[in-house]
């Protein structure tokens, strides 16, 4: 139901940095409340497990469009919407790497 995930790479800079941890909720109830602005972890057939921010939700929540906040992010602008079934959970706790 709950799972810690470690972030690699920088497409969600400046909010999320490489090395940060997030706790994601896999509770089915939470899937229904995925909405714009949520940060979600999902599986992509080519890129593996990814973390991105939800830019919008379409077709009654079945199609989720995701985006990074960095200019070089690979996201729905390249690979389109993510199916609801591919979503592993949404971030409910962000544990940032200490800066000093």
């Amino acid at each position, binding site marked *: 139901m709950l799972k810690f995930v470690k972030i690699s790479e*920088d497409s969600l800079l400046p909010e999320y940095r490489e090395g940060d941890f997030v706790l994601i909720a896999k509770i089915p109830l939470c899937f229904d409340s995925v909405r714009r602005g949520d940060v979600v972890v999902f599986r992509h057939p080519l890129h593996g497990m990814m973390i991105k921010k939800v830019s919008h939700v379409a077709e009654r929540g079945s199609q989720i469009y995701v985006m990074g906040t960095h200019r*070089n992010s690979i996201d729905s602008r390249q690979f389109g919407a993510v199916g609801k079934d591919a979503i592993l959970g949404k971030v409910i706790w962000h544990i940032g790497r200490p*800066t000093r």
Partner: protein
Amino acid sequence: MPFSTKRYWLDGKWLGHILLTPTQEDAMIYKLIKMLDKRFGIEQAKAHCDIPCGIYDPITAQIAALTVVRMIDLMNDLESKHPAGGLEVQNSIGRYVASKEAHAEKAKHEIRVIWGDYIKPQHMEKNPELHDLVHKIMALGSKSRQTADRETAVQFVGAINEFAGIFWETKGIAVKRAKAPYPPALDMIYPDL
């Protein structure tokens, strides 16, 4: 030292709280999870980028701005040597203007990239003037495109130099002031490596 009573909530339910300073608390939780990661291996999620990130340097913007001044100098030089003009002069002026346009926009673009992708809230807290400075650079860049006013272009270089000084300071790297080793040989800010 003030202590935190930060509470953690999940879907409206209180999970608990720890009596520590915010920094200690965050660092301790991070350390704990990192230990779990080492012991059990926490799965990684990619915040995927198409190229490796993290390479930022204001020198590209500084050189582009310097080029704007150089193009204006070349235009003034040509005009003084050939006051009557002519097709060849028009052709050269056209090329200088095109280069001035391109380099002013390039300088603005490079500053926007550093501003948007590198500058973080902690940099803003330490350098609250950054926002106004970036806006000033954008305005001076636009004015450098619209006119052939050398003074404006020199101010453009100066503002970008100021930005470069702040950028290197955020990285803890000292800077030095030196003349560019090529015309127009204006004062520039370089990292003192």
